[in-house]
């Protein structure tokens, strides 16, 4: 069996077998999480750590129920989620579109790169927390400055990934396109863009991470709603149960978003590893 297993991932197999293999992996994942939960349970129940430092699963579950039914500080959990998602996805979406376009353009054309790459290189290095103050002074304390922050966090990874994508496009693909009569723009849209898709999807995923990671920072200032705000607010009142609950909700949402991206990737880039 040994040798056969080795190549599982890369070689077409019979449907039946594949399905079974998938089940084993699901089992492993489930076991992993069960183990983590159990460790958590044991650590807190046996009071190895104080409940302030780490609340027990039971407490967290309880505050979960509470927040679901009565909400947190005037807003239901769904409102918090919705508010966060609106901000996040607005910033992320804009960053994705702009990051992909400018990244591809910069990968493709040296002159465009000469303008944007150093700027992105420069600003990407500026920690969001450091320039958030400046953003607030410029854009106020409303949703605008939050969205701008999330946008900026998501933009740089998207830009870098798209640019790398272009640089890794096979020379033959580009030569071939020109040779078949495609002009600059057509080559860009019909060849460079699809050929860069594997990189773009990697970018979309890391960029989601970057943007999501800034959510708390964004909602920290002058917030009244949002998951990030909820977690920060809870931390001020030492409600570690709410913190943990918030983190778990954020984790689950992020897994869903990531799965959606990966699903899209599978649909859109079926030739992965085959060119």
């Amino acid at each position, binding site marked *: 069996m040994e040798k056969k297993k080795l190549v599982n991932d890369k070689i077409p197999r019979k449907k039946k077998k594949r399905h079974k293999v998938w089940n084993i992996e699901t089992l492993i994942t489930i076991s992993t999480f069960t183990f983590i939960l159990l460790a958590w349970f044991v650590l807190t129940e046996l009071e190895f750590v104080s409940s302030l*430092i780490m609340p027990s699963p039971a407490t967290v579950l309880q505050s979960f129920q509470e927040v679901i039914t009565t909400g947190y500080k005037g807003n239901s959990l769904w409102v918090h989620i919705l508010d966060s998602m609106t901000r996040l996805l607005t910033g992320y979406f804009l960053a994705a579109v702009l990051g992909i376009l400018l990244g591809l353009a910069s990968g493709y054309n040296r002159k465009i790169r000469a303008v944007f790459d150093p700027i992105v290189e420069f600003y990407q290095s500026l920690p969001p927390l450091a320039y958030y103050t400046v953003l*607030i002074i410029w854009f106020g304390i409303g949703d605008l400055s939050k969205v701008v922050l999330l946008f900026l966090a998501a933009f740089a990874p998207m830009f870098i990934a798209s640019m790398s994508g272009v640089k890794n496009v096979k020379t033959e693909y580009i030569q071939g396109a020109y040779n078949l009569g495609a002009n600059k723009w057509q080559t860009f849209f019909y060849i460079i863009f699809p050929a860069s898709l594997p990189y773009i999807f990697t970018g979309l995923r890391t960029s989601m991470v970057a943007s999501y990671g800034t959510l708390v920072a964004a909602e920290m200032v002058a917030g009244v709603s949002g998951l990030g705000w909820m977690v*920060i607010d809870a931390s*001020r009142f*030492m409600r570690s149960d709410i913190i943990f609950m918030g983190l778990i909700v954020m984790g689950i949402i992020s897994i869903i978003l990531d799965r959606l991206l990966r699903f899209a990737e599978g649909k859109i880039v079926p030739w992965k590893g085959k060119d």
Partner: protein
Amino acid sequence: GNAKSTGTAGSESASDAESEQDLPEVLNIGYFEYIDDSLIVKQQGWLEEELNQLGVEVNWISFQTGRDANNALLSKAIDIQIGIGDPPVSIAVESKTPYEIFWAGQTVGEAEALVTKKDSGIDRIEDLKGKRVATTIASTSHYSLLSALQLNGLTEADVQIVDLTAPDILSAWQRGDIDAAYTWDPILTEILKDGTRLISSADLAEQRHPTGTYGVVHTEFGEKYPKIVELYIKQLIRAQQLYTENPDEAAKLWAEGLHISEEEAAKQAKGSIWLTPEQQLSKDFLGTSGNIGNTAESLKKIGDFLVDQKSLTTKLEVSSYEAIINPVYLENVVNKTNN
């Protein structure tokens, strides 16, 4: 706020009659989530009651730090901020942020204190030499800590000051990363469970190092809409009255607003000293429009402190601090009610 320009634009020194026609569409008020008069006003919806009649919306925005409030005022995202401590105000004076103090409702009492671990062997402030003391930089507690050290013949360099937010102070405390902390409620209550109080802000106030919180208004907004400021002051006075007359009712409101128990709220409320309008207008605090009080001095003291610390660059004259204290609004309210 956005001006609703009805008729001619109001002149700089608008009289009551004129300003009635000239009102903002929204009033943006920044506040901190802790136990004070303003929270009662917010919980009761008094301001909304008054202003909605006039077609003005009220928008409450909570901040976590004085820095954020300062920035918000700077970007004109808020018109009024309530409950801001002296260090941020001193910083704003230095950086010429255009706002004025119109209210000095509370001084810090037992709500902030310096605490050491019970069995750390530290009994007096002098013992802190070489120890790790946590506080939140640029807060009232920070200033109080420095004052306490100075009063006991120590300098900042004699101790290791660790900059932590209140919740992080608790974590560091529990892990034993720090020997002492100067902080506020609710963390203060929490660490007092296995700690001893060395000195509190109430003690320091007695030794002429008071700290307090203020209500400030963006200068432009105050000049344009003095009536709104006065209206707000009236509600704050009303809240003070509610607290003195019916502390249980007030505790209930705070408990609701902060999601804590009523007992907790009642206890924490006792940590601050409330100042009546008359006290505020006295020589010890804001003073009067002709004769600015000691608040300017204590703000200068803090400002100078921060300069010594290299946090700020230049020591300013008292006059600069006097310039941002504007008791006129409060005077107007007091005079009107007295008449």
